[in-house]
């Protein structure tokens, strides 16, 4: 999985988002051990302090925990991951609805469009 970062937004926020999405999609599984800060930083091509800041924030959210002697792990709390997934879905849908509104669609029209397009996609 590639890191996709740009320099327009704070890098540590982008790192948090991307690690979250790695957790949601199962690229990192519950209980997985994370590579060291340094290795993660090198992989993403960012400064180790920035990666550290992102991981500290993820720890505060309890998505990641530290075992004093052996490193950092992904949370075992499936409920938390589910919650994160839902949150992310909500965000995507809100963004989408905003764009559709901008195009001039009403909510009922959007829903019927979605149903149509989804059944079309199923056929293909």
């Amino acid at each position, binding site marked *: 999985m590639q890191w996709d*970062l*740009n*320099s*327009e*937004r*704070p*890098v*540590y*926020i982008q790192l948090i988002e991307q690690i979250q999405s790695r957790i949601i999609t199962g690229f990192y599984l519950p209980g997985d051990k994370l590579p060291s800060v*340094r*290795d993660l*930083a*090198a992989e993403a*091509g*960012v*400064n*180790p*302090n*920035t990666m550290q*800041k992102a991981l500290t924030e993820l720890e505060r959210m309890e998505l990641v925990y530290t075992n004093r002697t052996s490193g950092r792990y992904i949370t075992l709390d499936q409920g938390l991951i589910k919650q994160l997934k839902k949150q992310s879905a909500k965000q995507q849908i809100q963004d989408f609805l905003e764009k559709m509104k901008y195009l001039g669609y009403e909510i009922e029209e959007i829903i019927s469009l979605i149903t149509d397009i989804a059944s079309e996609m199923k056929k293909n």
Partner: protein
Amino acid sequence: METNRNAILQCNAVTKRFSGYTALSEVNLTLEKGRIIGLLGPNGSGKSTLLKLVNGLLVPDTGTIQIAGYEPGIESKRIVSYLPERTYLADWMRVIDVLNFFQDFYENFDKHKAYDMLERLHIDPKKRLKTLSKGTKEKVQLILVMSRKADLYCLDEPIGGVDPASRDYILKTIITNYNKNATVLISTHLIADIEMVLDEVIFIKDGQITLHAPVDDIRTKENKSIDTLFREVFKC
């Protein structure tokens, strides 16, 4: 001067004049340990002068400079690894000779690390410097400098002539190789290439520091990249 124990470099009201103009004017600067810092400014803004002062190649007219509490001199040179803007190595030397040269000069030079990096960048240590291309010569110099276990690295335009693929490798080396408490000060024009690895930036203009802040704070405040901000601030 108040000494900050977490500081690796402290410049206090440093002024440097050359006949006819002031290259640096009353510069106050404190760099902390364990940071990667970009020193950015247009041509002739004072970047190289500042690095030369820190490395004792120039002496300030007024003001003081301290590196881990030492004025630039023998003690500071033990812990500062400097890549100057121009090469000082004799071109008849083979890469292997230069490596031995560095090992004789610096206690903290790690030859294995140097060989490792040469191999990764496909540089033959038996070649003479004069037979190498400009970019390869730059890589060799950077390898020498980064293979020292220093507390402060001063890199003056380190990646200018280096191809983008090697640039990536070199930046990766900078983030992975240096020890946690070392500080890296990089002067460059290639902001877009390096801004992702920086902790802080310093903008310097006409010999004065106009901005010194953490990069993510700048992105939050300005909603733009450091590269974009630089182009706006220094628009001609």
